[in-house]
């Protein structure tokens, strides 16, 4: 996703002299070409994230559209108040890009796990939160957040579902993409873990459980229409995100369904329910440890769908 991001950024920077990229001393081997090619549109502010976000606000106040690039929690939690007071309150064109969503940097340790960013950033009024699931979405989202007025957060992941786009497909912020259809359950997914959701849906299909898969690349604003349709047309919801279960994608979906009066027949969130891991490991290792690998997703969906079928059977027998 990082490569897709920077490739698209090159194109955008060529066409838009008001595009400006700030890094907090990260991006080795990634930003070098950009820096050489666009020296007047690039700045490494050093390891100083609070100042980084303030400087971004200053540049944006003067009319630039500013990407702020760093990894993990550094461009978000480390300078959260600058995001709130300087960027959001002033409705500035600052686009925050965090590389390493979820457990992308699993082996680097808990400091580099970005696992609360979605819930925290989506709580901010005026913030757009985008977490692409495949490479095409990552590239398109880069352009979409650039074109969208106001503050945006773009969470990029090491893993991805590869390419899931259809010929001629148009990416739109706030519009979930339906990648599979099925009646038994809807898997609502954000981030690179989309790869596992799609595989789980394939496996389940063979077992006779047919899932709709929605790539909810935009966590805020959510696609209410797609969710309402899915609630009406499918058996229930399973949300999947590489993020704590509190307040992220799953929380957002639950809020929308309950307030919108279209609660799904069953609802389950797959995400991190445990404390910070005290061991390190690859992204897939940590997913497995937190109950969100392929097997865990498949089992959770199968149990929910079959449980619902059993309940229905019991109800029908009782009625007779």
């Amino acid at each position: 996703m990082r490569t897709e991001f920077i490739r698209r950024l090159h194109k955008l920077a060529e066409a838009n002299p008001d595009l400006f990229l700030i890094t907090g001393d990260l991006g080795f081997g990634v930003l070098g070409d950009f820096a050489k090619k666009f020296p007047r549109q690039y700045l490494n502010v050093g390891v100083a994230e609070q100042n980084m976000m303030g400087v971004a606000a200053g540049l944006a106040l003067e009319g630039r559209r500013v990407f702020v690039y760093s990894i993990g929690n550094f461009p978000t939690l480390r300078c959260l108040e600058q995001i709130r007071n300087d960027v959001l309150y002033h409705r500035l064109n600052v686009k925050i890009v965090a590389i390493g969503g979820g457990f992308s940097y699993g082996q680097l340790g808990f400091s580099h796990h970005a696992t609360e960013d979605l819930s925290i950033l989506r709580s901010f009024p005026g913030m757009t939160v985008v977490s692409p699931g495949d490479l095409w979405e990552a590239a398109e989202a880069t352009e979409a957040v650039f074109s969208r007025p106001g503050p945006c957060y773009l969470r990029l992941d090491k893993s991805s579902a590869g390419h899931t786009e259809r010929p001629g497909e148009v990416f739109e912020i706030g519009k979930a993409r339906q990648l599979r259809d099925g009646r038994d359950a809807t898997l609502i997914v954000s981030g690179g873990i989309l790869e596992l959701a799609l595989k789980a849906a394939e496996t389940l299909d063979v077992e006779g459980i047919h899932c709709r898969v929605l790539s909810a690349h935009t966590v805020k604003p959510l696609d209410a229409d797609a969710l309402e349709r899915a609630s009406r047309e499918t058996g229930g919801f399973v949300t999947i995100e590489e993020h704590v279960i509190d307040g992220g994608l799953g929380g957002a979906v639950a809020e929308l369904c309950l307030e919108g009066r279209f609660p799904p027949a069953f609802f389950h969130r797959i995400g991190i329910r445990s404390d910070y891991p005290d061991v390190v490991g690859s992204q897939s290792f940590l997913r497995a440890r937190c109950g969100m690998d392929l097997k865990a997703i498949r089992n959770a969906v199968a149990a929910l769908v079959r449980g619902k079928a059993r309940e229905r059977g019991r109800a029908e027998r009782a009625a007779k």
Partner: protein
Amino acid sequence: MDIAAYAKKIRIHALRMTSRGGSSHIASVFSMTDILAVLYGSVLRVDPKNAKWAERDRFILSKGHAGAGIYATLAERGFFPVSQLDTHYQDGSLLSGHVSHKGIPGVEFSTGSLGHGLSVAGGMAYSAKLDGKGHRVFVVLSDGECDEGSNWEAILFAAHHKLDNLVAIVDYNKIQSLASVSETLELEPFADKWKSFGWDVREVAGHDLKALNDTFERLPFSPERPSCVIAHTTKGKGVSFMENSVLWHYRTARGDEFEKALQELEKGAL
């Protein structure tokens, strides 16, 4: 413009605003009033009838808790009606305790949490350099505010990028929220700190209007270096019982205290 008269009006407005509203920080307003009067009275290139004029000098009040002071300064300068000051701190008012730009012409940036203004000003000054523009960016910070580490990030940044179009003015009244600066977190040797970070520093008597004006007229103090003015001020300046008192960081002047403060300001004895 009669700067002394301007400063007097700002103080009286701020006293009335905080008294009516029951808000704090009157002493923080009084310590920086003369700085604001000199800046808006003779130094800053601004146009009250065209607040967003592209070539204006930018001003950020980073010590946003002294909001009443900048509102009064801007209103007296003609950015918005003086009568609007009466709404300060009232339900539904645009004039908050900590300065906010929304709906108020002339307020460049909203602050309130300390340690934000200088970074933003650094970004604005950097942008002006990129675009080859001649305007300057001024920031007023409090001394207690310099406890915030974010300022020191910004101080590094401005020197590294040779932002000689950036001016940081510290309202060094030596008293912060609960106690004196030296009891809380010592800043001295303060000027040396700024110098060692690469800024050109001038220290000035912060209530001497001529000295302030002369100092600002020499900006930038040297090419390719950001300028710092450490203004030695008196917290609560202008009202005898408020001067150099920790109490008046938060206390509101009401009743007799208000009347006495008003009399002293009107007489202008201090």
